[in-house]
């Protein structure tokens, strides 16, 4: 069995879960695809998962109401073992990449991180992933009775829903929570999440101020139905919430269109967006590195170009 650990938010499976099902189906690993749902009060999530997988396993426990790396790792390792999984697919989200190494150590398994392809070749799992700040594509192979894999969001197509699978409740033994969360500053947005958007509009220092960001980047994102992104510099400056950060220490995105507004293009930012389909850059410095990866660049003041662009789009 290939076990996919479901990711979900706001009562629905995340796009990444459907993508992992595709990765599992197309991998050529023998056996059926199972989906594991961890959480509390997650029967509707499990029912949705049963539309894409033959078997769904649910560990529904109050202790799992909030994510914790040690709890998640313990639960996933136990279910993977009990079901005799030969591959475990985990989302390439921050949490997925945090608890997956613990699963690998528990099962003495190799870990393939943030894969963009996955194929069973002669009994080994071969995958590609990016290295050197997303500049190098590396092909790696892992062998073992079970291999742990994290899957890069956006790298695989969304799986189609099909016939209804079975839902089985499973019990897991959980350790005590040791990392005590004392406060949470959640950053909710009405816009589409960064990782799920087909268009992303991002802003950097060149927008001038938090107000400048709203007037340019957010206005453009609303016009295009796009997600909003930001550079580390302006997140650190407090102009934008952390959840919007694109780059090495933020999120990696691969939309079909990425519009960089007032972003110079430090290598750490490029590593979070350089695989995007089409890249547009608006920046007043004609030598800014962002133009090297751009399909279309406009040199000019963002406060003049963006309003003109909005007017043009509304025509």
């Amino acid at each position, binding site marked *: 069995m290939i076990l996919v650990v479901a990711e979900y938010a706001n009562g629905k499976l995340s796009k990444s879960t459907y993508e992992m099902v595709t990765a599992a189906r197309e991998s050529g690993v023998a056996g059926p695809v199972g989906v594991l749902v961890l959480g509390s009060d997650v029967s509707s999530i499990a029912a949705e998962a049963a539309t894409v997988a033959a078997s769904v396993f649910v560990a529904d426990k109050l202790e799992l109401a909030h*994510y914790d*790396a*040690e709890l998640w790792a313990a639960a996933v390792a136990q279910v993977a073992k009990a079901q005799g999984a030969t591959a475990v697919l985990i989302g390439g989200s*921050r*949490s997925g*990449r*945090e*608890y*997956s*190494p*613990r699963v*690998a*150590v528990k099962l003495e*398994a*190799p*870990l393939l*991180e943030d894969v963009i392809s996955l194929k069973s070749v002669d009994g080994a799992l071969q995958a590609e*992933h*990016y*290295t*050197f700040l997303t*500049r*190098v*594509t590396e*092909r*790696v*192979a*892992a*062998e073992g009775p079970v291999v742990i894999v994290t899957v890069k969001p956006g790298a695989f197509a969304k799986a189609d829903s099909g016939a209804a699978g079975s839902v089985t409740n499973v019990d897991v033994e959980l350790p005590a929570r*040791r*990392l*005590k969360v*004392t*406060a*949470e*500053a*959640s*950053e*909710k947005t009405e816009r589409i999440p960064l990782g799920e958007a087909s268009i992303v509009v991002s802003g950097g220092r060149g927008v001038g101020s938090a107000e400048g960001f709203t007037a340019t980047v957010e206005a453009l994102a609303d016009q295009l139905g796009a997600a909003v992104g930001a550079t*580390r510099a302006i997140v650190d400056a407090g102009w934008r919430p952390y*959840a919007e950060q694109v780059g090495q220490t933020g999120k990696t995105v691969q939309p079909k*269109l990425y519009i960089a507004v007032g972003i110079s293009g*430090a*290598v750490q930012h490029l*590593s979070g967006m350089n695989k995007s*389909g089409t890249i*547009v850059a608006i920046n007043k410095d004609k030598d800014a590195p962002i*133009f090297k990866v751009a*399909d*279309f*660049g*406009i*040199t*000019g003041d963002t406060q003049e*170009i963006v*309003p*003109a*662009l909005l007017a*043009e*789009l509304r025509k």
Partner: protein
Amino acid sequence: MRILTVIRQVLDAEESVKIAGGAVDLASSKLVLDTMDEYGVEEALRLREAGADAEIIAVAVGPARLEEAMRTALAMGADRGVLVECDVALDAIALSSVLAQIAKAEAAELIFCGGQQADWDSQALGAATAERLGWPQATWTNKLSLSGTTLSGRHDADASAESFDVALPAVVTTQQGLNEPRYPTLPNIMKSKRKEVKRQTLAEFGVTPKLKVLSQEIQVKQRANKMVDGKDAAAATAQLVHFLREEAKVIA
């Protein structure tokens, strides 16, 4: 208490990656201590300066050239180093076994590790090491303090920033924003040359790679690189919208 800070040596961010014979070739590139690891060394020093009675040990696993990066850590203020020389590329899961064994041998109580290293883009080392030691972890930490044996800090989760408390022993992974690493002063650079670096071999740890690297290549996406002067904003944006609609076909 003993604090381990994990050291990696990576390509300078300003350098371009070179490929030779299907593999990354670092022979003629400028290599530096990973910034993520500088944050770890700096944070260990700050905990000590804030009153923790700590010995700070820089740990590196890899080719002999890593001593350069280690000397940077020692010049910043780390007390001594442990360098496990090996020429095989260890993945994070394998490497974590070496680190865990060193942590046990040194009776360490706190380990700093980069959140995502700039060479292999892995985020696994800190968590894997914590699991091997049976310790908790705080990843992507951007604020930290120590009170008795409790670490308090702030870190980034999937869609929020969390404040946390965790009891030692623990693994902390770093990220930009945690601190501003100091530059080594000349006297400290001189002093660092006399600091002890213990050399060990990989054979002492009984660890082999879990992954096999088959190839490395640079896949450069061809970009249209159309450049338009925005002096006439209306004309420039009209061209852009035409490009997006008719050529790239990415908007309706």
